[in-house]
């Protein structure tokens, strides 16, 4: 447990040292969502219709953006070897890194989403649903993403390959997440979507750290 906190502390400290990094995933989210009205035109009804999809796709992409850094920096400077050689179980350290990633890249999205949602003219109810789905969904994205991040370690062009590997895995989250907001906007029940997202989260929490740990070990070898 102390080790878990230590690694989270370390990763957050590293992010804070480059102050810009805290905000960039967030800004990317904002910029991408604002690109759409520019590319599509300012028809309010149309925008409202596509809002859940666009917001969720933007969330996916901005998670993706920082994903490669989850292990890559440590791999390159040799710190990852040292983490593998530390007396702590590696799975714990990997979990710590995933949590740190979510705090930096996922949590801010959840908090920022309503503001963007307002720009797309969503009503209050939809905004709550949006935040709820993001709260459940973004940890799943960080978790699944860690597998890709570990698998593409040391692979040149890894960050591009990473998106290829991981986007298909993100699709269920996208479908349920955007689906819930859409369902709410047409007055349907959203509890099904939420329980599915919850189930995904629990499953991912249970299995992903082990998978990522295995992938990290393979990369180090």
């Amino acid at each position: 447990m102390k080790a878990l906190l230590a690694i989270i502390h370390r990763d957050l400290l590293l992010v804070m040292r480059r102050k810009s990094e805290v905000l960039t995933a967030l800004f990317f989210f904002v910029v991408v969502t604002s690109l759409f009205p520019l590319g599509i035109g300012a028809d309010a009804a149309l925008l409202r219709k596509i809002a859940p999809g666009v917001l969720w796709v933007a969330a996916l992409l901005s998670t993706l953006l920082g994903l490669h850094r989850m292990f890559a920096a440590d791999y390159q400077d040799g710190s990852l070897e040292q983490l593998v050689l530390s007396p702590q179980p590696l799975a714990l350290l990997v979990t710590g890194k995933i949590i740190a990633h979510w705090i930096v890249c996922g949590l801010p999205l959840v908090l920022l989403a309503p503001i963007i949602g307002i720009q797309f003219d969503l009503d209050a109810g939809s905004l709550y649903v949006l935040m709820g789905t993001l709260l459940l969904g973004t940890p799943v994205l960080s978790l699944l993403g860690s597998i890709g991040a570990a698998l593409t370690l040391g692979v040149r062009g890894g960050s591009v390959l990473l998106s290829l590997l991981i986007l298909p895995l993100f699709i269920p989250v996208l479908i349920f997440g955007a689906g819930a907001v859409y369902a709410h906007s047409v007055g349907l029940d959203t509890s099904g979507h939420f329980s599915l997202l919850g189930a995904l989260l629990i499953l991912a929490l249970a299995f992903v750290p082990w998978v990522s740990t295995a992938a990290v070990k393979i990369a180090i070898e």
Partner: protein
Amino acid sequence: MSQINHFSNHRLINWFKLSSPSTFYPVAGKLIPFFWVLTFLFGAVGLWVSFFVAPVDAVQGQGYRIIFIHVPASWMSMFVYLVMAAWAGLGLVFNARLSAMMAQALAPIGAWMAFLSLWTGAFWGKPMWGTWWVWDARLTSELILLFLYLGFIALRASIDDPRRADKASAILALVGVVNVPIIYFSVKWWNTLHQGASVSLTKSPAMAQTMLWGMLLMALCFWMYTIAVTLMRVRAIILEREAHADWVRQSIEVKS
């Protein structure tokens, strides 16, 4: 590195006879013609049934005959993925190189099957639905399957060390397998609201027995074909990866 491979290789022969590339290589060579014969047999009969025995469909006219390649290709694309993931998993657990090679050999053919399913589906959709593509759950899941194959191939291609590539791609294949049913069943929750136009043969009154037979025969043809091509490819892969082993240097093809 590869030198080590062949030292340990000789020690392993006693343990797993057929799981060693050196014993499997000639066996595969002997099996290949057998599967080619089966492929042509099923193919000839299947094509004959599809074009000359199966009657015209009441709703779709002659256009429906695409089914005889569309459905086999679709089935094989999914089946091959499962088999590939199984081999990859075996390779990971038992550290068996041959299993990993089998997975490596299956990926391209699986990707081609997924591609064919998409292509034939699109060329079926245009006359029947009036569009090449709709974002319906089944079509989308097939597209994602193609992406999973391509991801597997791309990951393998970008790792130089074959043993590391085996393990990394095995993890990817296994994770992807979890994704397949999820995507597949998403039909239920997603798209129930706005379904694209869809014509379904199974809903039309009676699917002629002969049609079913044609489909099954063609599916068998595709199956045998997949096995034959996979065995051919796995032989090439074995030679590439075991280039330094003594048995490769002494094998007939290389010597003569």
